[in-house]
């Protein structure tokens, strides 16, 4: 393009300035703050080296929080994805009201997670919540259970809510993936004598692999970003049972004016590193591929010129 050498930078500058100030700088700043200790939120901080990280190593709430994030990751992959694939397969055949199903399955995904949390707190309400009322009607008229108060099982019920919100999203992804597979593949298999089960298992599922990879990537990246649901629904549990990393950061720094900014930043730094450690391997191949393609495109262009 016949323009000044600086032009591209002028195009980028406004975005870079905002991004730098409100995203990149805070990330770097959290590294700096993780080395500080606040005696109180009102006093100036003191430099304390890696003390915060040493403290973290023996902080069982932190390890439990990290464990909860990893459990959510594994649980999402093992529950939401298979369910989504099943539903997408079922919907692939001629279905009465397919659009209705798809629209309804996806709907929870557009709700604010805060609204989902409020809704499900009422579903799990011990007195006259939806679940309790259903069980009273069907099984035991005197049934009562404080779903979100028992530290052993409450995380499971929160996970059910998470599945309620996200499974439909993965289903829609899988439906799109399935519909992009040429139907000739299925026809050919049927003509070769495969039954429907074999068509699904041996033809459709392998062809769906790229979509499954996308779903899994989103699921994995997303599993570190849980905050709203856990913060709002697990609030009544003891400290060690209620946290994921993001909520722990928030509570350390802001809950009841704790003001543990340094220690909270140390958790944030670790969350950042965990996120990078998970994302980079997932995306590295894609990024390498892309720059490889661009290089190839560039060199062929050079040859043509």
């Amino acid at each position, binding site marked *: *393009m016949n323009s000044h050498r600086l032009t591209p930078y002028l195009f*980028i500058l406004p975005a870079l300035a905002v991004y730098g100030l409100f995203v990149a700088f805070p990330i770097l700043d959290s590294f700096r703050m993780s080395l500080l200790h606040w005696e109180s939120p009102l006093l100036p901080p003191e430099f304390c080296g890696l003390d915060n990280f040493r403290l973290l190593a023996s902080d069982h709430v932190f390890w439990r929080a990290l464990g909860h994030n990893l459990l959510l990751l594994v649980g999402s992959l093992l529950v939401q994805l298979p369910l989504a694939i099943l539903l997408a397969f079922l919907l692939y055949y001629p279905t009465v009201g397919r659009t209705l199903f798809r629209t309804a399955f996806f709907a929870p995904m*557009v709700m604010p997670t*805060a609204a989902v949390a409020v809704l499900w707190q009422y579903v799990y309400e011990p007195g*006259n919540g939806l679940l309790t009322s259903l069980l009273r009607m069907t099984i035991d008229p005197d049934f009562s259970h404080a779903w979100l108060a028992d530290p052993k099982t409450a995380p499971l019920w929160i996970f059910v809510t998470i599945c309620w919100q996200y499974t439909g999203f993965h289903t829609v992804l899988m439906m799109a993936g399935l519909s992009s597979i040429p139907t000739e593949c299925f026809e050919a298999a049927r003509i070769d004598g495969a039954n429907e089960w074999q068509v699904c298992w041996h033809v459709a599922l392998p062809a769906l692999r790229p979509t499954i990879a996308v779903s899994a990537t989103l699921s994995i990246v997303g599993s570190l970003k849980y905050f709203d649901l856990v913060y709002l629904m697990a609030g009544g549990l003891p400290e060690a049972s209620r946290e994921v990393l993001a909520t722990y950061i928030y509570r350390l720094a802001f809950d009841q004016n704790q003001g543990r900014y340094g220690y909270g930043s140390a958790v944030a730094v670790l969350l950042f590193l965990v996120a990078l450690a998970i994302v980079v391997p997932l*995306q590295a191949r894609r990024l390498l591929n892309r720059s490889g393609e661009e290089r190839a495109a560039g060199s062929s262009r050079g040859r043509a010129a």
Partner: protein
Amino acid sequence: MKKFTCRHLVFFCLRHAVLAGFLLATAYPLVWMAMTAFRTEGDAQARPLGLPQQWVMTNLAEVLRSGEFSSAYANSLMLCSASVAIAVVLAALAAFAFAQLRFRGSHVLFLLFLVGMMIPVHVTLIPLNRLLGVDGLGIKGGLVALAGPYIGFALPISILILRGAFAALPPDLLDASRVDGCSAWGVFRHVALPLSRPALATVVIFNFLTMWNEFAFALTLLGPGCETLPLALTRFKGEHDIQITQTSAALVLVVIPLIIVYVFAQKHIIRGLTAGAVKE
């Protein structure tokens, strides 16, 4: 056409039964919530399931009259419209450079932007609280405080989507406009933008939805008396915990506009949600 056999019929029925089961599990909590919003409190306590004995509008009216909600509505609307508008302009400019202009460091800069999409935003809560607080910019507590982080974190996904759209523009057209003497700005303004309306719509709708639903920044950075809709909803729940009908009414007021947007803009929302992982 294959013959319609008994086995087909069984499969057909079984399939629809399973789907209907999942539909019930997904939709019933929402329907239940909507119906609770129209019950009397006594009805909700005595017969929480089934149709309301008597449909009443008092809960919705009560929530709207309390004032918190209407001001939260106005806040969310203002904040999200302004932030989306700015984010889209900034992202479009940057995406155009990444897609159509060659310059040193473009790769590194693009990767830098992508990082913001992959990391949990909560990493920045504590430093942003300091940056926006009295020791920094001093705007913590008001709506303005949220605009910066909202725009900043909207940029990566927006740039990614728009870069894809701008890179897919027909090269002949771009060459032609350059031959006609268009500057980079001219190409951007008169060719790239008008031809990328679908991608721009995706970016606008998706970011609006994300900001409208955002909770963690609002919880941390807003002061008392200034609320966005999700924050107002959770506070409302805290204050009216026992009155399930009123909280349900509040929920309905939050969710209804979203469902309407969703029904009309499903395609854009899905495209935005998947942009982060789809191979280019």
